[in-house]
């Protein structure tokens, strides 16, 4: 990268309330994914602080960040990021291994998480044998398995057709509503954000250029 400093996210001051559904909108390179990675504890800010649940991520060790990722946040990616050599069940169980949950309990926990996302069959199949929508459901189940407070979704519908995308987004919103789970959605599709989020944050060049409550959401929510 050379010696030039690139500020992916610069001078952002943002507060998200618990139980909210926030959409980060912007073109590629706007810094929205970088911001999400900071919230996810995958990256750390060179300055400033990220405070989640009263805990400053900047003050956490690598081990502390791993624990934070394990218990406080769940992540869903555009490319699903399932481990291809593992079955559906094993993929969902993976975070339980790191959380050192007893082996006997893992299967049951994984099945109930899969049930929440509407998957009951083909649990012994490999991800490659599933459709895109199903794979994303598995990924969401994996994100839910440790009962996180926050669900972080990075372009979750980017690799899905519009119908399946809608199904996945409906699922994420129902989790937001029923489990009171805070959702931060990164997307470049304004329609999608307007349909599901209750707050829209617009980003460009690593800075917030707009922040508005989304009145359209109530209508969309009523529709589905």
């Amino acid at each position, binding site marked *: 990268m050379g010696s030039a400093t690139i500020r992916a996210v610069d001078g952002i001051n943002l507060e998200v309330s618990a139980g909210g559904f926030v959409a980060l909108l912007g073109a590629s390179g706007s810094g929205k994914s970088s911001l999400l*990675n900071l919230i*996810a504890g*995958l*990256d750390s800010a060179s300055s400033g602080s990220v405070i989640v649940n009263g805990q400053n991520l900047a003050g956490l060790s*690598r*081990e502390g960040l*791993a*624990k934070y*990722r*394990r*218990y406080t946040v769940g*992540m869903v*990616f555009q490319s699903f*990021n*399932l*481990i291809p*050599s*593992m079955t559906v069940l094993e993929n969902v169980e*993976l*975070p339980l*291994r*790191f*959380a*050192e949950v007893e*082996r006997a309990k893992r299967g049951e926990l994984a099945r109930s998480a899969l049930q929440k996302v509407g998957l009951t069959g083909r649990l012994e199949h490999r991800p490659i044998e599933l459709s895109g929508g199903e794979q994303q459901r598995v990924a969401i189940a*994996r*994100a839910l398995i*440790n009962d996180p407070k926050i669900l972080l979704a990075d372009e979750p519908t980017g690799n899905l057709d519009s119908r399946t995308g809608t199904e996945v987004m409906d699922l994420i919103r129902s989790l937001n509503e029923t489990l009171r789970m805070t959702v931060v959605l990164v997307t470049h599709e304004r329609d999608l954000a307007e349909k599901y989020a209750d707050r829209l944050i617009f980003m460009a060049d690593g800075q917030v250029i707009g922040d508005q409550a989304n009145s359209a959401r109530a209508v969309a929510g009523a529709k589905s």
Partner: protein
Amino acid sequence: MKLYDSVELAARNLRESVLRNSLTTLGISVGVASLVAMLSLGIGLQQLASRRLQHSGLFDSIVVTSRRDLRFNREQEDSGPAPAESPDLNETARAKIERVNGVVEAYPDLRFITEVQFNDKPHLTMVAGMPMSSKDSDSFEGMQGKFFSSGNAHEAILQKSFAAELLGKSARVPDEINVAEVGGPLIGKQIVLRYEERQTTGGDPNSTSFSVISHELPLTIVGVTDLDPDAMRGARAHVFIPQQLIESMHPMQAYDMRGSNASPSSEPNYGTVIARISGAGKVEQVETAIKKLGFNTFSILDATKSMQRFFAILDLFLGIFGSLALTVASIGIINTLVMAILERRREIGIMKAVGASDSDVRGLFFAEAGAMGILGGIFGTALGWVIGRVINFGTNIYLHRQGFPPEHIWAVPVWLVAGATGFAFVVSLLSGLYPASRAAKLDPVQALRYE
């Protein structure tokens, strides 16, 4: 992450690229095998050498000589009484030596050169006494016939080269003489031993004069020995008769003439007394005690010390050569794991995103390295064992062709099996050190971006 989970995930990863990991494991196996084969050869040779020495009877015996006897006086002249004032090595001295703590028996080493008649033909040879306790010695392992029936039986055991000479088959390399071939026609036959008896004249105890009377003694050949029971002695005997018999014969000894000048005693002097010790470990202590009595001693202890040093160095060198292959194998592990990091970059990123800590990832790679190490160690030890067997088998075929009895030149003790497997495990973990810490430090954001 619990160890069990690390191992399970590691096993899964190893199965995923089974060919590459098998080849890496094979590399470790070859390394361990070469180490095991080298060391087991060293250990086997050492065991062979010490077994030979132990059975030779010299390991647990001390050769005692008089200080007046200049044959052995090179080193010990300076300590203890001057040779002239030192005690005689006679029957009284022998009894004293036998009473030393740790001595099982002490007997004079009696031997003389004489004429043996067989089929009316004379043969010149050295005759020596052999105590009944020598029966267990390794020298009689491949013997034809049997050992003496009693301590004073009129029986003789022949060394096979002398047996061949009696049969007119001399002038051959001793190793080519088949003991069964020469033993068969001789056992049960008679030989006649001519010897000179030393007899003290008159009843005067202070008299130094003695007369020499010739005798002829018929002996039955009871055995023909393959090896040379006298191999470690200076003047080798080829005919052995029971110790009690030779003592009762009072044969004229070479040193009797010398003794006649120096010792004004009626008791005959012995040139050498052999003291047998109850265990090889007591040799040093008994030697000191006998030296205090005023005699010179010699034991094989010093020789075995330098032998042990030699084998320690041999083992070290064999071990270094064996380890070279293991070093190459450990580079193979590093290579395989570094490749695995590149291949599984994304997977590591995913694991970190769902909550894996640095130590979880590190543990996973360690488990993979360790699993390859243990598997390689086990296969390698087995392979080394097979290689050792093959070498041993081949050597024995060669020995057989050369007319030698088979030998165990190779030994795999339990500690070597455990040690080699453990060593392979440790070396693998060390090899995993760098890849594991590299994987642990992987930036999850970059790893996930990687397609």
